[in-house]
């Protein structure tokens, strides 16, 4: 435990530096830049190394606490940014990803979550890592999509529609798989695929709102783009409720998902 979190600020500084360097290079260059991708890949490699070290030190996957999940969120934001840049060449996407990842890194530095090494019995499952990792990746894609929707809403044009739609499709695909791996895990752990627990109910709200957005996307309904942006932003707010906001509701008191309270 000491090894991991003690050196986190130093490794995080390197991650942020490399990520922003890559993002700036990508933003400045008109064509797709291999150098920018290399810099971002370096940032990802350092973050991945830190997570691997923490994993070894804790002797369990670092996916249990809010601080640890934010670590994965930072990582997957950078991965999503690199992937989206590499695949669709949006030169600003890595900058968005770097800013968002830095926010979560800063939260971890300014408010470190220190925890014991014990992974509670309910979390000892083969579903644990895939469920949370897939969710984190979807959060990263949907986070980028939300930022682009905000920009599009402010700008009032539709230049970003294609990128928003692709991020929405990718994010919702991962969100769906994350939710369903959770359902399969729940059957093993508690005997029911779905029990309308507070967390599950908010997951249903989030998923349904993203499906509304998906059915409003240009590929399906080629109109109402402004409404689409608003729905994507609302869905992302619901996602925040599902992720950590639900912990502050009275309905979460009896939740079987309350691992971090």
């Amino acid at each position, binding site marked *: 435990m000491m090894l991991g979190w003690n050196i986190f600020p130093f490794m995080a500084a390197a991650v942020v530096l490399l990520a922003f360097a890559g993002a700036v290079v990508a933003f400045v260059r008109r064509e797709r830049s291999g150098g920018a991708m290399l810099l971002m890949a370096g940032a990802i490699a350092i973050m991945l190394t830190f997570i691997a070290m923490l994993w070894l030190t804790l002797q369990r996957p670092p996916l249990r606490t809010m601080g640890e999940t934010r670590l994965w969120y930072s990582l997957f934001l950078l991965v999503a940014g690199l992937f989206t840049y590499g695949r669709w060449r949006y030169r600003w996407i890595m900058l968005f990803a770097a800013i968002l990842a830095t926010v979560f890194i800063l939260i971890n530095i300014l408010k470190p979550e220190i925890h014991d090494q014990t992974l509670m019995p309910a979390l000892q499952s083969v579903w644990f890592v895939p469920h949370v990792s897939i969710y984190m990746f979807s959060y990263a894609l949907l986070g980028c999509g939300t930022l682009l929707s905000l920009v599009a809403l402010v700008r009032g044009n539709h230049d970003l529609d294609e990128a928003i739609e692709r991020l*929405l499709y990718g994010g919702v695909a991962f969100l*769906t798989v994350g939710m369903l791996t959770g359902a399969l895990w729940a059957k093993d752990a508690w005997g029911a695929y779905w029990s309308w627990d507070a967390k599950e109910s908010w997951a249903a709200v989030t998923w349904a709102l993203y499906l*509304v957005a998906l*059915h409003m996307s240009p590929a399906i309904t080629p109109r109402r783009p402004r409404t689409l942006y608003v729905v994507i932003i609302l869905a992302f707010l619901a996602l925040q409720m599902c992720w950590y906001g639900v912990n502050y509701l009275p309905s979460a008191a009896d939740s079987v998902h309350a691992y971090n309270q």
Partner: protein
Amino acid sequence: MPCMRCMQKEREYRYPVGAIVTAVVAILTTTLQGVVGDFPVALFSFPLNIIAMMLWLVSLTVIYRNRGTSRLCRVLMSRSATWLSLLVMATIGLVLGLQRMPSSASWGVVVGLLYVMSHLYLITLRGMCATGAVRWRFTLLHLGLLIALGAGFWGAPDRVQLRMAVDGRANNVAYTMSGEAHTLDYYISLKEFSVRPGGGGEHMQYEATVTVDREDVVLRVNHPYSRTWAEKIYIVNHGAQPAGNYVVVEIVIEPWQWLSAAGIVMLIVGAVLMFLRGPRRLNGDV
């Protein structure tokens, strides 16, 4: 095919009529909830749930076959109906997510889910007949969701959840969550129980060897014992250590569980295809 004028009229009336119907249904279900309490799920246990489901499927299929002339069918398969069904799902989640003791058997949830599944069934039928590169994806996603929701909905009356405190003596009396006694046709007894401690005074894992129907089985969290294709036994609690000499097991009988699993797997495959193929749509107005 309906004429353009009729379709225009339908569009004009769709939203107000839809809003009125939704409001009336909401008032009716709220009133019913207040007067008679939750929906009587237990009344629809096998074979009544199968009969009700078949009647529902046949009715929807008849409606679908008359889609060329049936205004109800066109409204039920419209884009607005899709948005309404998704908003119904979101509302159900929101209402249940804000309650401390949510009841998924309330009238609002039952009627809402029935509407969602009806819409899903009709558009799945239409989508399966469509052409295009993403037909399989569409079918997997929509049929998968329909099967997963349907198995949970129609299978709920057949689901039995019992708890039993198990010690060294053979026992076959378990209790429902409402405290009613239920006699099993086999006995369970505790043979061995151990706790593996972790740091911070927490339990790393607990493990019980129990004798179920004269067979020794090991129960751990996340590792239930499948007694039959429809029945699983879980360890859910234990007596205080070191003096504790009993464990609490949960017996879940769920004949529809494999149908739910099939729907979930279809949805996962559909979601993977959605990521791989990206934004595309079916040919035709689906």
